[in-house]
């Protein structure tokens, strides 16, 4: 009888841990529901610093590829009407010209793409043009990476720049100077 009593006492002194998993599950489900896993994607840009007194450095006309987007999303590329799907080829031609054609840039380092919009331009049209311009640069970078024996630009960055801590030569050669033009002062 005495032995039986002792056994009972011992059992009661333990904290029941069977429900521990359930409590943890409940918390887990709460955090699962409130978590947002979606990664932000977008087109990264760096704005120019505010203009003080100093004027921007002069750019030679031939080095600048001017793209104008009007109020209804129509394009004017170097004063010629153009469609959005022409932008990519034209940008590539402009950047990789290396001084051959006098209408295009002297060197990739000097090439500038200027995108100008009016205040009524739909944002969608602007993003389309900006996207095509970036894609042109990406294709140029991919091409350069393949010449260097990589699969594409992303693997060049991963294998050479980040792994060996080397300077990003492709990016230095093709710096992707995309200028978002200042809005006109009279507006």
């Amino acid at each position, binding site marked *: 009888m005495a032995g039986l009593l002792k056994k009972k006492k011992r059992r009661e002194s333990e904290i029941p841990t069977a429900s521990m998993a359930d409590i943890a599950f409940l918390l887990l489900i709460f955090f699962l529901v409130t978590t947002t896993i979606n*990664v932000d994607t*977008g*087109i990264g840009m760096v704005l*120019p610093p505010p203009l003080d007194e100093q004027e921007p450095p002069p750019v030679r006309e031939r080095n600048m590829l001017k793209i104008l*987007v009007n109020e209804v999303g129509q394009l004017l590329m170097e004063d010629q009407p153009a469609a959005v799907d022409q932008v990519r080829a034209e940008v590539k031609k402009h950047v990789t010209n290396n001084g051959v054609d006098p209408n295009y840039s002297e060197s990739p380092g000097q090439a500038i793409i200027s995108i100008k919009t009016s205040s*009524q331009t739909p*944002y969608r049209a602007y993003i389309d043009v900006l*996207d095509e311009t970036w894609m042109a640069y990406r294709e140029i970078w991919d091409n350069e990476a393949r010449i260097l024996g990589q699969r594409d630009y992303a693997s060049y960055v991963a294998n050479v720049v980040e792994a060996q801590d080397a300077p990003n030569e492709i990016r230095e050669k093709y710096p992707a100077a995309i200028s978002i033009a200042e809005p006109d002062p009279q507006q």
Partner: protein
Amino acid sequence: MSGHFKKKSKPKQDIPTASLPDIIFMLLIFFMVTTVLRENDVRVRTQLPAAEALTKIDQKRLVSYIWIGPEKLPGLQLGNTRVQIDDALIEDLPGIRSIMYRKLTEQPKLIVSLKVDETSEMGIVQEVEQELRQAGTLRINYSTTRFVQ
């Protein structure tokens, strides 16, 4: 002898559940660390444009959002284009400068993600960009969805 064997094999039929709380806690801690609580209540419609040349923002804690789009009105109606930062709709656009400057001092590596509705006009986007330039928050990201062919 045979009875002996039976007794030994009996307790092994249960799956040991003692480590279950630990496993769950590990998952729990993972989600606790990765969760960003309190998503903002967006009061403007931002239907994002699609693009191909995407970059990912891995560090969510560096990002500050600016929403630009038509204001959501009761009854699924849309009002004028407004700018929202954090929880508040911005009444005067030059006020963005001080807001963003304060954010920049708190997080020097700040990336401003512009979530702009695709039907918005560039005028308001340019005004916001001018304010960002004055504030010194130069790293921006035009938030877009992935273009699916």
